[in-house]
């Protein structure tokens, strides 16, 4: 079973990166690091000016009380949604830090242009890869990268998803190293999670610090559920009528993101369903209601491809709907995100993203990729072997940080062992440099202290356009010097502000 379990985390997320980050903790020169509030030299950066003047006037004791109050609010949300009892709410609680991360409107504009470009390219790539495969014919991606990739789903070949959209919801993981330098770590094109935290964080900040929002003009995020519903509805199969039926498919209460599934369904005003609530009826996928079966036009599924359809995929899965792929291929339902989108956020494909963006948009990529050496290429392999102690080496098809080497933290013995592995099977590995990630202050007992962060903006895609919620989810490594932002490993979250300029 996919992701069943009680661990609180945002799915897979940064797990591969966190491994490298873990090793980097302590090796990063904290003083030379780029802080989003204080820059490199301690001069307050413009987006934080109004916040700083407010913060200076606050009593730390009062703020500490507010911090505790915030945590209580999160607990209550879980309980309000009837998802958790008090003890479980405690369990799922991800630490929240009250100091917002602030991004200027100008910075955001550039960032969102980059995100939009990338998301367009990803959708064009997915369409191409499941149709004519022009990018392979053009020699821009080697055929083996697709042919030998488990994330390529043959059942999607020749399928035309309604509206031509493959990735209805995308969460692009970004890190920052400088004023203008953002790097994409991962394109989450399957079922990115974490958006409920973005919404809860803002809600909490609005309740506790209304005065901050009158001093700063912060772009709203609260309309995300409405936009999500609108965006999904716009992707309904043709002939769905004026008000398409949207539903959220969850694997059930044991899934680590169940709260989010329930929360989003509630906020959108749509049904939350499980596989056993659905079946094929009259050529459609329909949900059981008190008045019989009601056909679904758009299914926002939070169930992985493999578990989606026991007739067509994993026959042991009870989480999905047998026959849904048949209905989908016949054009009777929209599955969001489309099956097979994993080929676009695969690690092996990641290193080709600059080529992919250029190939489909005809433009140079606005967002940077982390430079990646593909060890299958002899020159790259030579470089990697020569600089192994500076690099992070990952298995192309691995996940979860297993089987990786963190050069700066590795012993001589480990390095030697990995050299042998690299020489034996170079095609199995990629290597990346360690980046010096930005920090944002958190609130501690001793006042503000810098901590490393990443950012996951949430992007909605429909035939009507691309909608990027200003901000997204900021995850923060609460431990000093740490770069691990995973909630299961001492990571927390922050409210993310994009200012109106």
């Amino acid at each position: 079973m996919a992701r069943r379990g009680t661990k609180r985390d945002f799915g897979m997320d940064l797990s591969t990166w966190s491994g490298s980050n873990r090793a980097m903790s302590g090796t990063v020169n904290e003083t030379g690091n780029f802080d989003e509030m204080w820059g490199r030299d301690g001069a307050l950066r413009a987006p934080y000016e109004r916040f700083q003047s407010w913060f200076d006037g606050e009593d730390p004791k009062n703020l500490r009380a507010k911090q505790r109050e915030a945590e209580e609010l999160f607990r209550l949300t879980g309980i309000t949604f009837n998802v958790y009892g008090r003890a479980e709410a405690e369990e799922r609680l991800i630490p929240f830090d009250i100091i917002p991360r602030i991004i200027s409107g100008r910075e955001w504009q550039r960032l969102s242009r980059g995100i939009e470009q990338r998301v367009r390219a990803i959708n064009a790539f997915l369409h191409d890869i499941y149709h004519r495969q022009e990018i392979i014919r053009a020699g821009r991606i080697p055929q083996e990268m697709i042919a030998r990739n488990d994330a390529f789903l043959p059942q999607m070949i020749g399928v035309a998803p309604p509206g031509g959209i493959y990735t209805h919801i995308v969460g692009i993981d970004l890190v920052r190293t400088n004023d203008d330098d953002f790097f994409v770590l991962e394109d989450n094109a399957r079922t990115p999670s974490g958006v409920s935290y973005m919404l809860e964080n803002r809600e909490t900040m609005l309740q506790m610090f209304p005065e901050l929002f009158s001093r700063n003009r912060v772009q709203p995020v609260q309309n995300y559920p409405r936009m999500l519903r609108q965006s999904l509805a716009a992707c309904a199969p043709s002939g769905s009528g004026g008000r398409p039926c949207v539903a959220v498919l969850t694997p059930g209460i044991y899934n680590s993101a169940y709260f989010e599934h329930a929360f989003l369904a509630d906020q959108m005003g749509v049904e939350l369903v499980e596989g056993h609530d659905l079946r094929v009826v009259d050529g459609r996928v329909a949900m059981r209601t008190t008045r019989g079966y009601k056909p679904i036009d758009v299914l926002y599924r939070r169930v992985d491809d493999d578990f989606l359809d026991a007739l067509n995929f994993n026959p042991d899965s009870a989480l999905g709907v047998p026959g849904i792929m048949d209905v989908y291929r016949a054009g009777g339902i929209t599955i969001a995100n489309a099956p097979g989108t994993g080929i676009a956020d695969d690690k092996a494909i990641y290193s080709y993203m600059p080529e992919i963006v250029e190939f489909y948009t005809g433009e140079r990529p606005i967002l940077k990729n982390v430079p990646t050496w593909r060890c299958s290429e002899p020159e790259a392999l030579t470089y990697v072997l020569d600089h192994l102690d500076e690099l992070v080496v990952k298995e192309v098809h691995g996940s979860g940080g297993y089987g990786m080497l963190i050069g700066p933290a590795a012993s001589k013995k480990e390095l030697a062992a990995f050299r042998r592995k690299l020489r034996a099977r170079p095609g199995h590995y990629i290597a990346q440099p360690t980046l010096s990630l930005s920090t944002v202050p958190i609130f501690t007992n001793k006042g503000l202290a810098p901590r490393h962060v990443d950012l996951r903006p949430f992007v909605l895609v429909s035939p009507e356009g691309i909608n990027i919620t200003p901000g997204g989810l900021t995850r923060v490594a609460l431990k000093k010097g740490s770069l691990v932002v995973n909630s299961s490993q001492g990571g927390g979250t922050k409210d993310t502000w994009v200012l109106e300029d």
Partner: protein
Amino acid sequence: MDHDPMPMRLFIRHTTRYTFDTPASHGLQQLRKTPKSTHHQQVLHWRTDVQGGRREVAFEDHHNNVVELISFEREAEGIVIVSEGEVEVGDNHGIVGRHIGPAPLWLYRRATDRTRAGAGCRALIREVAGETELDRLHALREVIARAITFEIGASLSDWSAEDALAAGRGVCQDHTHVFLACAREMGFPARYVSGYLMLDDRVEQDAAHAWAEAHVDGLGWVGFDVSNGISPDMRYVRVATGLDYGEAAPVTGLTIGGGGERLSVQIEVAQQ
């Protein structure tokens, strides 16, 4: 010089009967039972009737097969699926022609669980010799026929190529899986074909037939029937293709509830 004989007109009726000992609560069946016209087979007319179930949707899959999804309801005690029609077949010495898609040719080099080459397949490949690619594929066909004796009832439907090789007995499905595993290992794109064969001495055929096709540069797809030791001729009607039996089977089903399922198949192929 080769003289192409007149095309042959075949009448086919394929009846599949499922009987449930206790009624099923709900079930689905994917049918791949509709032959398509190609340049050597012309489907004159064809229909599939389902009793005890209903047709939900139909679509064409990535192997260009016509797929129909059938559902059956609570209280169903059995289903009868009858496919029948007439197909005119010409002889082209097993050559099906260039790859059309929509799946890219490289997909047919993918091993599946049923067609993964192991030690058994690799040992067979070592016996294969021949000048041209075509020679080597024919040699492969002969080597497999020697390694696996055709015997009805000797194998299980979920056997892999290596299972069949280890047993040394099997049916057309097993022959075909071994051929696919070896051909792919040898570098050829290869696919499973399910269809009909008119055995000359009878109208009632024992079972639906299966054979393999491999892609040879310059010729395109070429058929190889290991069980009968030939390349398909005008007695063969192609119905569905896939990477293995699972993707080309006439019926793939899933039943929720219902105990004990009995299947009976009746196939008639006759020359008109």
